[in-house]
């Protein structure tokens, strides 16, 4: 990636204009032409560098309560447990990590019951014994804008 492309990407990330014609305004700001910018954006999307362009809605503002959950899953049960977790629409992130608690995922729901039902399922039906449920007490930073 050249310097110009990096500049385009970082600007798309952090200074995307709140306007009717965001690409036109952005092109003007970057002193490039709009057609060129649009072709670059398409290219970045095709390559998977840009996941999407749009809004990240605040789950807290919508009244969702989010928790981080870490569980310990034996290797032979990993596949099944992971697909069970991934199939929940309350789960947006799920990772394998190098720790005794090897599977970590976020669970966000409006009603507390959804969480308790899910955890009960894990414990009773999926036989997971070690479960950490870690609600956030305070958020200090949330800014997935990357410098690269």
């Amino acid at each position: 990636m050249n310097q110009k492309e990096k500049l385009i990407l970082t600007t798309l990330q952090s200074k995307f204009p709140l306007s009717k014609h965001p690409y036109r305004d952005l092109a003007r700001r970057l002193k490039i032409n709009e057609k060129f910018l649009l072709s670059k954006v398409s290219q970045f999307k095709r390559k998977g560098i840009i996941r999407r362009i749009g809004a990240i809605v605040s789950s807290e503002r919508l009244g969702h309560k989010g928790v981080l959950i870490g569980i310990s899953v034996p290797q032979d049960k990993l596949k099944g447990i992971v697909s069970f977790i991934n199939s929940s629409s309350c789960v947006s992130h799920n990772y394998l990590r190098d720790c005794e608690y090897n599977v970590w995922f976020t669970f966000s729901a409006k009603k507390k019951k959804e969480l308790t039902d899910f955890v009960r399922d894990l414990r009773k039906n999926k036989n997971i014994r070690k479960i950490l449920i870690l609600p956030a007490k305070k958020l200090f930073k949330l800014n997935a804008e990357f410098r690269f």
Partner: protein
Amino acid sequence: MRLSSRQKAILDFLQQDLAVSSSPFLALKRKLRINEDEIVNELVNLKRAGYIRRYGAILNHRKVGLKENCMCVWKVSSHVIKEMVRITTDCPQISHCYLRKTTREWPYNFYTMIHGRSKAECLNIIERIAKASQVSDYQPLFTIKEFKKISPRYKF
């Protein structure tokens, strides 16, 4: 502020991928039968009211060279938290900082998501934080595999 049905429709639209075109709100304009200025006004309002946390391109950090991701968990005493927050939130390679409840088995209360080009880079950042904060009880939990990562799409 309660969301109007128009605002709900706009939020729903914005959770999808904006068209790569000179007038990306055209489809929404037709659907809601309002003009683009009104759409932009609502967008500004929603952002100001905190419903939209961020607006713009969402990148795949792996594809821009940040291949290693580490959730480092720290055991921070209450009187050090303020200093820890100052050190970690200043760091551009850290995207998330949270204080979380602890359990008997898990004493770590402070969580940082660190993104780097290599494990060494992540570990360097961690060491720097440990040194600056004098917090010595921590665990770097590197991502081995990403099973799921989506922008949650909230229904209204």
